[in-house]
Structures are given as C-alpha cells and as structure tokens.
C-alpha cells in the first residue's frame, strides 16, 4: 500500500506513451522539421518542445529537448514518492540523466563540442528546479572553475580523484558513468527482502549488459587496446563472470557475432544476435527483466524504475526515427530501427 499514490500516478502517465501507430505516423514524415512539428503535438513532449520553431527544429536540438522531458517526468513522479529510502534510491537511479547533462556542460566548457548550442536550451525551468547549481555550472569559464562549481555534489570526489592526474575529457566522462553504477549498486542495500532481490536483479543485469556493450564498442568502434579497456569497466559482476568479460576484452575479432556469443558463455549468450542491433538487444533484455520482476514482486520502486526506463526507450526510438527520416529511409525501414515492446 505504501506505493498506492505513486502507482496511480504512473498508470496515468503511461497513457501518454506513444502507440505503435504514433510511431508509424512519425516515420511517415518527409523531413526533420515535419517530424519535429509532429512531435510537438504529442502530449508527452509539447512542453519541452515549446520553444523550438522553424529553423531551430534541428535533429540535435530535438534530441536534447526530448531528453529534458525526462526531468519533467521525474519531477512529477518524485512528488508522489514516499519514504526516505525510496526517495534516495530513485535519486540515485535517475542520476544518469543528470550525469548526461553534466557531460554536455563539460564539453561546452572545454569548447570541444560547440555544435549549434545555446545555453538557454539547457536552462529549462524543470531542469533548473532539479539542479539548482545548473546555471553556475554552465557559466564556468575554465575546467578548474567547473570543478570548483561541482564541489559539494557527490560527483566532485570521484572526478577530483582523476582530474588531478591529467585525465582527458573522455576519462572524466567515463568516471562519472562508473560512479553512477557503483553508487546505484550500493544504494540497492536500502531495500530488503524480495524487493531488494528484484532491484538487484534489474541493476545487476543492467550493469552486466553495460559492460558487454562498452567492451564491444570500445573494441569495435574505438579500437582500444585490451589493456586500456579495463579502466572503463564497472567493477561489479552480477551474473556475468569477470573471466568471461576478460575473455571478451582479449578477443581479437569482434566483427563476427559468433565470436561474441562463444565468448559470452553465460546467460547473456543470445542477446546480441544478428537480427537486432546492440541497443535493441539491450532494451529487449531489460524490458523482459523489468516486466518479470514487476509481475513477481509488484514493487512500486520497480514500477517507477520501469516507467523511467520505458520513457528513455521511447525517446531513443523517436530519435532513431528522426535520424532515419533525415537519411530519407522509407517508413518500413524506419520502423526497423526501433524496438517497441509488445505489451505494456
């Protein structure tokens, strides 16, 4: 019963998710601007897209605005969260979005990623309410000023640890991700009994999958040497044996899906098959973990996590469609690039 109000709220918010038909309509648009206008009419995103008109309806901007809607939803949920422990946990769970924002700002401060970007875009009222020190952070002139403005937050310590050792921006970003997962893993201890096991299962699976995906990306797209990959792995192993991951790192040829499957002899064997991309494999597995654990426990915490997960999935899907539209793919092609769970 402790989650009654929250559950009702989430059920109501579920109604704003896009239907499969909505996605089909979106994929039928002819240009990014048209797609953007279409998204602006959707109830879930009207608010965050309000300021984007005509010229400003560009892919990168739409994407960023969509992401900001996550903060909007989170703040709505947060009002209905009761209990100190649950509150703390959800904060830790949602932190990755905050981290994404910090990464964007870090790029801005270092001037490495200018693109077409305006600060006002980030200073959305909802986000500012969530992160009071946001404007101070954006206005940092130098990296050391940026670090100073971060002091007092929980990111300061882990970042400072490597900032003093001439870390690159990439290393700083990865350190934030590491911190997110280690902190989240630790926060599972706030729960007890079956709820804790359920949450452990979700986070543990997510961490295992993240590790696999990171190794895959680092080796395939960034061609990292095996030695340098370890610095970016989360030092937590749930059901994926550390040795399997080490084997994956030391593998020469990752192009071949069979190699990937052979190396991963654990329970994540068939997640990454040829039919789906890495991302949709991840979403598929996580979706099944979420639904199963929620059905088994009925935990409100899991329900809230699931909602935020679905929201992120939806944003990813929309982004993928816009991308496809930009490259002029046919509606059928577009729909191949999204993963839409059968049943909500």
């Amino acid at each position, binding site marked *: 019963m402790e989650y009654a109000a929250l559950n009702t709220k989430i059920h109501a918010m579920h109604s704003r998710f896009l239907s499969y038909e909505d996605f089909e309509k979106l994929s039928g648009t002819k240009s990014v601007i048209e797609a953007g206008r279409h998204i602006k009419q959707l109830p879930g995103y009207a608010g965050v897209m309000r300021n984007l008109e005509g010229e400003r309806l560009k892919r990168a901007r739409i994407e960023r605005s969509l992401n900001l809607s996550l903060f909007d939803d989170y703040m709505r949920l947060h009002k209905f969260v009761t209990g100190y422990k649950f509150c703390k946990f959800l904060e830790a769970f949602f932190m990755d979005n905050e981290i994404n924002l910090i990464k964007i700002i870090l790029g801005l401060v270092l001037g490495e990623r200018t693109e077409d970007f305006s600060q006002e875009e980030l200073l959305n009222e909802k986000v500012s309410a969530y992160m009071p020190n946001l404007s101070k952070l954006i206005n940092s002139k130098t990296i050391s000023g940026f670090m100073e403005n971060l002091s007092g937050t929980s990111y300061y310590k882990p970042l400072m640890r490597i900032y003093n*050792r001439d870390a690159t921006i990439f290393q700083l970003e990865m350190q934030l991700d590491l*911190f997110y997962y280690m902190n989240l893993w630790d926060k599972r201890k706030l729960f007890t009994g079956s709820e804790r096991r359920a949450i452990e299962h979700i986070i543990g699976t997510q961490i295992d999958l993240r590790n696999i995906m990171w190794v895959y990306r680092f080796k395939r797209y960034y061609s990292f040497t095996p030695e340098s990959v370890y610095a970016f792995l989360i*030092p937590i192993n749930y059901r994926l044996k550390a040795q399997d991951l080490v084997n994956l790192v030391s593998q020469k040829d990752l192009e071949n899906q069979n190699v990937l499957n052979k190396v991963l002899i654990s329970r994540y064997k068939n997640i990454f098959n040829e039919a789906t991309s890495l991302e949709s494999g991840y979403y598929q597995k996580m979706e099944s973990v979420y639904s199963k654990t929620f059905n088994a426990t009925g935990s409100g915490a899991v329900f809230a996590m699931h909602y935020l997960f679905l929201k992120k999935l939806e944003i990813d899907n929309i982004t993928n469609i816009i991308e496809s539209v930009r490259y002029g793919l046919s509606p059928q092609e577009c729909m191949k690039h999204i993963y839409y769970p059968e049943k909500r």
Partner: protein
Amino acid sequence: MIEKMKYINLAGPVNEIDRVIETYISNYEIQLEYAAKELYNSENVEAFTDPNPYVRLFEDSKNFAETALSYSGKLYPIQKEEAENIITRAVDALDTQKSELKKFDEKRGEWAKVLDVISHFANMHFNIEDLAKFKNFDCVFGKIPLSGFMQFEAYLYNDANILFEKFDNDGENVWCVYFTPKPFREKVEAMFSSLHFEPVDFPAEVGGTKLLGTPEDSMFILRGKIANANSKAAEYVEDLLDIVGVTHERMAAACRFVKDMYYCYECRKYAGKTSYGYFMFMGWMSETDAAKLSEEVDKDEGVVLILETNNDSILSKPPTKLKNNIIFRPFEFLIRMYGVPSYGELDPTPLVAITYSLFFGMMFGDVGQGAVLSAAGFLLYKFKKMALGSILGIVGISSVVFGFLYGSVFGFEDILHSHIIKPAEDIMKMVMFSISLGAVTILVCMGYSIANAAKKKQLGKMLFGSNGIAGMLFYISVIACALAIVVFKINIPAAVIVLAVGLPLAAIAFKEPLTELVTGGGNGRKRKKKQKSGGGMGAFVTVMELVEVILSFFTNTLSFVRIAGYAICHAGLMSVVMMLSGAENGSTNFIGIILGNAFVMALEGLIVFIQTMRLQYYEMFSRYYEGGGKELIAYKDIKN
C-alpha cells in the same frame, strides 16, 4: 586482557566543535576514524575541508619548539594576537639573521615528504634495492585511486602476468606494488596507467645519506635525519629570544597555544559535517572509558554521544588495547615485537609472562646471579626506561627461586644446605620433567587456540584444526598410549590405539569437508571458492600436511628438552669456573670467581633469554597466536 572496544559517535552543532575537541577528545583515549571514510557513500556527510588557519604559524613555531619545551615553569594564558605577534617577530628575526635555518627547513620538508610516501609501505619487509635486481621481472611501486583498484580487483587480479600486492589504503588511494615479467612490462604499464596508477620513486639517497634496506629502515634513517636537522636548528634559535626581547615564558606559552589550536583544527579532519549543521566524530575507545565519557557528556546539553551496540556493521576494525597487571605488563613488549593480537583474540600476555619466567628460571637457576640480573634489570628500567629491563627484573626473580630449588649461589653448591634437585646429578629426572612440562605447555597453547577459534566462531578450526579439539585429542591419545605402554606396561589392544590416534588424525585430514558438513555449507554464494586440486595432487598434499602435523607435535615436544639442557649446562659451566679459580683445592681465587660469574652471567643470560624467546615464538605462538591487530592510537597521543 584485551580491552573491550566501543564504537562511539560524538555529535553536536558545528559551533561547539572546538569545545568538544578540547574537553573530550583531548582528554580521553579515543582512536578517531575519518568520518567521511566510515560513512562511505553517504552524501549527507562531508569532511571538514576548510584549511587549517594555524598551519603557517605552527610550522613557524616549530623553530622554537625545543626552546619552548625547555621551559618548565608555569605558563600564563595568552591571546591569539599576542602569540601570533611573538612568533612572527621571532621568525622575522630568524629570517634576517639566520638564513641558514631556511636550508634546514627546506631539507626537512623534502625529507618529510619522502617519509610520508615510504611510510605507506612500512609493512613491506623486503629490501627495496633487492626487488629492483630481478633479472626477468620488473617491480613498480605506486598508488592507484580506489575506483581503479576496484576495477583491477574485479578484472585483472587473476592476470597471469601481474603479481599485485596492496600495502595501504588511505581512503583515496591504494598504495601497492606490482611485478611483471620484463617482456610484458609495456602492456602492463599501459594498463595500470589507464587505471590512473601513479608510480612512486624511492630516492636512493637523501642529503648525502644512502637509504638502504626495507622501507622501515629507510623510515628510521629519515626520522633520524629530520631529528638531527631539528636539533641543529634549535641551536641557532637558542640565543634568538634575547634578540627579539621575548621572555622564555611568553615564547613557551605562544608555542603551546599555537600547537593546541593547530591540533584542534587538524582534529576536525576526522569529523564529518552533516547538511544540518552538525558535526560528528567517530572512533573507538575502551568500554570503561566510553562509560566515563558517556556520563560526562550526559551532563553536557549541546553534545550527544551514541555508543554503537553492534560492532559488526562498522567499517573499520576495532583496535587492540592490552591491559594487564603490573607483573604481566612488561611482557607485552615481547608480544608487540611479534605483532599485536587482533581484537577478537585472547590476550597471550599472562601465558607468556608465566611460561617465560618459568622457563628462564629453570634454565638459569642461581640465587646470586638471578638477584644480580634482577637488580640490573630494574635499574635499567628505572633510569633508561628500557622495556626489556623490567622483563629482566622479573625473570631474575624467577631465577632466584629456582636457585633455591637447585641449591646454587654464584656457582657454590654447598652454601645452601637444602636443595630439591641438582640438575647436574639428576639428569634423567630433569629431562623427563622438561618434556612433561613441554607437553603440558603445548596442551595449554592448544586450549588457547581452541578458545580463540571459539571466540571468532571458526567452528571448523576449533573442531578439526591441527590445534583444535581434534589435534588435542590426538596429542592426548598419543601421550596416554605411550605412557601406558612404556611406563605402566599395560597391554592396550592395537585396535584401541588405532582408533584413538587415527580418528582425530582423520578429522584433521578431512577438515574442509567436515567443516562444510558442520556449518551446513548452505550459504554457497557467500563462501569463497576453494582452489580445486586434482585427486592425486589433493591426496598427496593432505598426506604431506598430516606428516607435518605429526612431526611438529613430536619435534615441538622434544624441543623443550633444551630447558633441562641449559639447566645442566649452567651447572657445568659454573663447576668449570669453580675448578679454574681453584675453589675445589681450598685456595679460592675470588677475582677468578667474580670474572667467571660475570662471564657466565653475560653469556648464559643472553643465550637463555634467546632460547626462551624461541620457545615462545616458535613452539608456542605457532600453535595459538594469530596477531594481525592494530594498537589503539588515541588522538591525544598523536598530538603529543
């Protein structure tokens, strides 16, 4: 006895923190722990990071520390402004007049930095130079941030090309060393540097002195150099007070004030600050002290003391504080030399004290020489504060007691007309008695070991360990059978012998499966994976271990023969002295007797002292002592 420890939380509003440090932390024996480290991952608590405003002043005042210490009169209170004024003026005078002092300062700072780095490796007992000399291996010392260490531990700990050893964890970094075969050096190095590992160099020499040997040796050299520089600097300061025109008393008061304030601020580093404006100190103190403190704090409205009831949930390990009566206390020195017992262990001091005195007395039984040793020992303790001295004093007394039993005074066997036993004449009796004493001692040690295992809830070790109940049964059965057959000539059926000796042995051999059986083996995931060894190899290892267990019982028992041996040897040596000085022909040469006695006392005293120590460390400690504890270091002691 090892004192029971309590984990305490001392909390109050931030503006009270100085008062709390002054009234409680500086007066009670509390080992503070870093609150930020204890509450790892708690976002609401952060460390006090404000810089210490007295750092500069305190550093300056160190120039005058010796001068200040030499003042023994009463100190009158002093205000911050005056203290600051005095010290700055004195330092200015120093700067202008004695630029040489700066050189000392720089050197001292440099050495202190090196010392700080090396001290993280203090418990490595290898010669640093030797480690660098490997032909096929490279060894790299350094520090790695905690997150990197966790990644290393998760993924690379089993890497065949890396041998890794961690020495110290200061809450931010793990200080460590890794070894790698030379051909892999580049790869391994790249891997470590991506984990933000930072190598450290140990300088080969400081200020013209070579740093040799283990880190501890280097630390010793460095401390010596720093102390040397300090005293040289103090010489320059001696006549400075006159130049500045400050009285000795004011200088001492200023120095003490600055020191107090400096440590008051330093102490804050241990505290945690909550977002609601409260501070929190955490640490360990003995139960009795904690009760006293609790009573005092109860009267204090602003401050709260929380005594933790369950130590299991605490991150840091409880420290060890030994507490013994005045007779046993000196022997704590011998135990510290071997390593401080861990918190959950039985304090071995009483056992060491009793057996040490007993063995020493038996080996060195002489009324006169014992009395001299005892007197010399106590004098050494009184004037030189040597811990060894008080031990010598106590064992000397034991030696006097045995001297009466043996009837021997300075080698004269006929002054005392009564004696119980003459070692040189009843050799067989002495030998049998020593061995029996050894057997009893070993049994007592095993009793300690069982009690220790029981206290630590190590059921397997307690029941099936070679020093557990199984080992004890085995030992008792062997002794009983031997006694029955050899001494009492009773015929025991072979089956009984096999059963009585074989069963405990079998229990020791199958310790691991039996332990799993007893503990249920249920929580499978929590248990560490045992190393699997193949059937043949495993059986071989088990057999070898059994042979080792049996042999060690045998040799350890026989080893106690040395007690009889040295008692006889003592008598023999003294009779040689007597013969050479002509006491047997009636024309006694007293100079010869004195010289002979002195020689025997020095030589035998040393040997017996060492042999007794060997019995303690090797025959006895190996049976029951675990060690690995850390002594309680109270904050107020750090300060002084």
